[in-house]
């Protein structure tokens, strides 16, 4: 037990710290709007997210939200509208880590941008939204948190106001985002109509009593509502059928923002999907009412998403676009976590959570390498990356780690999470999904190693001058690489935390 007894709302400290940092940056901006003091601004953002990260790790270690003897139990706030449990803290950690990496990397990448404070406060606001999504336990808070994460993201993608690519990316991201959030709201209204509640536990209770006494007449409405909710989650996680914004948005956006969206935003989308489908729609009762097992939808989505992502990635010439499609493929892997819930085992969902954590490092790192390449101005295609290894061995070695980890080569972090996903899928009886995972991983090795080959083995097209070594970008890349490797010996505690959190959700 902790020596100091904190009040209950203090469980939200990671979220509050992120929000406070965003507001502090706004205050700084309103006092000194023309300031381009990157050290102070990026420093504030990085320190804020690191403090939030520290608090979230401390809470996890101290057992906040954990059940059992030394735990405090899940902390419900505001009548169960928000809940801080192990899963919430786990995903807050992912969001905070990625935010810290992105803030540090943006120090160099956004050099010369006129509106510095705006940029960092939008990043922090989006991070606040994502962290709130981790804790949201009602369709109301989920919707508000989701919009709080989405709206700043639209602006961030389009923040390079004179860059046509950035504007186009922002427009497409916004249009598809607005469409999917309208569908999501409509789905919420249908679920509310069918059950009369918006709080997730209350919906579950209503469905279970409805299934038990057979007086529940709105199965069709409920089914349609669930389908529309899946649409909203698919947008946020960049999975089929709302995946087509991802390549455009990631390619046009500033590279650190692409890293932020593809790692933190995706993880946040998954946490609400996990929470809604494990808490609000208990499998037996829901499938009795709507006549279909909702895991079936995720089985199909998982297979289609990973196949579409990987096959499209294999044909790309543009590195950032390749990473965008690979990010869609990884969303497909993480969807296995929902597809395998039918077996009632926590292994698949725990494995998906592990994958999202490892992914948070390796994918952020890979996009930050692209940011570094854009900072150097070497170009965007595979050929343009030829021979970078001779000039920047450290960053390129980190790139090798990211690529092989994304492909799932042992002994890197990405291998372990995929291994758990694979055994989880087998255990849940999803042999087709497990086979798709193996085939897609093998395919992904082709395009990941293509980048490694370009960087290390190809000759540069023309003699290059020596490349600069921007401190912030290098620090972020090296840190992400170190974490991708260190997660291997440190994987024991991660596995334990993820499985505990998943077990608590399913129970």
């Amino acid at each position, binding site marked *: 037990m902790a020596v100091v007894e904190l009040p209950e709302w203090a469980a939200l400290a990671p979220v509050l710290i992120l929000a406070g940092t965003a507001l502090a940056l706004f205050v700084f901006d309103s006092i000194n709007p023309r300031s381009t003091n990157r050290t102070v601004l990026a420093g504030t953002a990085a320190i804020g997210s690191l403090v939030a990260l520290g608090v979230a790790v401390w809470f996890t270690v101290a057992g906040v939200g954990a059940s059992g003897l030394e735990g405090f139990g899940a902390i419900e706030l505001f009548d169960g509208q928000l809940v801080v449990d192990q899963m919430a803290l786990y995903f807050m950690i992912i969001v905070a880590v990625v935010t810290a990496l992105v803030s540090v990397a943006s120090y160099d990448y956004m050099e010369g941008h006129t509106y510095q404070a705006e940029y960092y406060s939008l990043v922090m606001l989006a991070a606040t939204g994502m962290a709130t999504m981790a804790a949201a336990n009602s*369709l*109301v808070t989920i*919707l*508000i948190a989701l*919009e709080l994460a989405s*709206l700043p993201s*639209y*602006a961030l993608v*389009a923040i390079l*106001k*004179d860059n*046509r*690519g950035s*504007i*186009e*990316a*922002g*427009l*497409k991201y*916004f*249009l598809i985002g*607005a*469409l999917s*959030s*309208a*569908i999501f*709201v*409509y789905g*919420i*209204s*249908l679920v*509310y*109509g069918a059950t*009369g*509640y*918006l709080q997730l536990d209350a919906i579950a209770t209503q469905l279970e009593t409805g299934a038990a006494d057979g007086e529940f007449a709105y199965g069709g*409405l409920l089914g349609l509502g669930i389908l529309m909710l899946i649409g909203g989650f698919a947008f946020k996680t960049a999975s089929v059928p709302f995946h087509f914004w991802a*390549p*455009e948005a990631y*390619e*046009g956006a500033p590279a650190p923002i692409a890293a932020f969206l593809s790692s933190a935003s995706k993880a946040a989308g998954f946490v609400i999907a996990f929470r809604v489908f494990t808490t609000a729609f208990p499998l037996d009762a829901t499938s009795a009412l709507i006549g279909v097992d909702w895991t079936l939808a995720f089985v199909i989505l998982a297979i289609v998403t990973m196949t579409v992502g990987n096959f499209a990635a294999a044909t*790309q010439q543009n590195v950032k*676009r390749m990473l965008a499609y690979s990010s869609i493929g990884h969303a497909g892997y993480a969807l296995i976590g929902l597809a395998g819930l039918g077996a009632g085992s926590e292994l698949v969902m725990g494995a998906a959570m592990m994958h999202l954590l490892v992914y948070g490092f390796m994918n952020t790192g890979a996009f930050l390498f692209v940011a570094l390449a854009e900072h150097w101005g070497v170009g965007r295609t595979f050929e343009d990356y030829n021979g970078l290894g001779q000039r920047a061995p450290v960053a390129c070695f980190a790139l090798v780690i990211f690529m092989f980890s994304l492909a799932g080569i042992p002994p890197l972090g990405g291998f372990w999470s995929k291994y758990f996903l694979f055994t989880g899928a087998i255990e849940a009886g999803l042999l087709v999904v497990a086979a798709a995972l193996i085939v897609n991983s093998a395919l992904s090795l082709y395009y990941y190693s293509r980048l490694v080959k370009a960087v290390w083995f190809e000759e540069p097209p023309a003699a290059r001058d020596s490349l600069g070594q921007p401190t912030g970008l290098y620090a972020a890349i090296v840190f992400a690489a170190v974490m991708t490797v260190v997660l291997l010996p440190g994987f024991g505690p991660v596995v334990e935390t993820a499985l505990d959190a998943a077990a608590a959700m399913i129970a």
Partner: protein
Amino acid sequence: MTVGIEYYVLLSMLLFCIGLFGILTRRNALMFLMSVELMVNAANINLIAFAFYHGNLTGQVLALFVMALAAAEVAIGLGIILVLYRNFRDVDVTVPTTMRW
């Protein structure tokens, strides 16, 4: 005499489909925004009708939140459309194709 709940749902579904049709056919970004607004308001009709039907206020409160969110979304959207116009001299969503593969 009260109107049955099914008519409200029918109305909202109709409105939702009009919005969806608009999104699929219109090329003007502003029209797109208006269509999205229609879809969101269809959800609002549902929420309010169901709140009345279930006899609790949850849905009405959420409808208020949704209106605020829709307003915020439009604010961001108009900002993006403005920079779109500055860069491309058009608000046609099919014009920006610098990244078409």
